[in-house]
């Protein structure tokens, strides 16, 4: 499965900030941690902020902190901010043919499994499984 860059950055940022909700990190600090573009990450943080999941970020050095509920927010909640919903895609040419329809059923099955996986993993579960045992 391939995630768009913004989705991946959104997941990096939210998980890093949710690791310690008391801590404030700037987009530059987050970008350095993951070796990604600070400019791109700032835009992603803006989306997370609009969604009410992080707060802060005034000015270039402004920091962000996590304001969501780690036990409630799932990976799917973040992915849905950046990726089109599976049911919302435009119809592809040939989809109305029998072969196109069969192919679409297989692709929908894959989408449904991916959604079940992403929607069942909360940030809390993700951060817990990330801890060294």
């Amino acid at each position, binding site marked *: 499965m391939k995630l768009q860059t913004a989705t991946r950055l959104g997941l990096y940022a939210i998980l890093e900030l949710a690791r310690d909700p008391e801590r404030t990190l700037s987009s530059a600090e987050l970008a350095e941690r993951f070796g990604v573009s600070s400019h791109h990450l700032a835009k992603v943080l803006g989306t997370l902020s609009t969604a009410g999941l992080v707060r802060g970020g005034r000015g270039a050095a402004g920091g962000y902190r996590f304001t969501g509920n780690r036990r409630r927010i*799932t990976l799917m909640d973040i992915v849905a901010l950046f990726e089109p919903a599976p049911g919302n895609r435009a119809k592809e040419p040939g989809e109305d043919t029998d072969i196109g329809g069969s192919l679409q059923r297989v692709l929908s099955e894959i989408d*449904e*499994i991916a959604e*079940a*996986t992403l*929607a*069942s*993993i*909360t940030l*809390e*579960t993700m951060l*817990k*499984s990330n801890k060294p045992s």
Partner: protein
Amino acid sequence: MTDIRPAQVSDLKAISALDARETGVAKPDYWREMLAPERHFLVAETESGALAGFIAGEIRAWEFGQPAAGWVFAIQIDPTLRLKGVGSELFEALVARFKAKGVTRVRTLVDRKDHLILSFFRAQGMVAGPSLQLDKNLS
């Protein structure tokens, strides 16, 4: 504070009622069969002795060609007592019984559209297993 113990015949009425409330289907015979000695059927009760939840499972060897593993068949928690760790306590108690019998894996099957129960098992550290369930409509 809940107490976890093996289910008894006297628990069946409350177990069946809780399940029927949550699933919309009463299946008392199924729950009675869960009392068979090879099954692991545990209940959690509140300090006042009311049913807080239950879990049922069994160790099965060579099911679908795979070595022995503990299977979780069902778990149900009273909706008013959720998010208090009762489900985790029941899961851990069942896993402890499986481990005591020497198995090293625990498995379950979950409706992929039921994200709530999927989240619960994920929070217990479970991940996608080695098998894919396949299905065909025969009607």
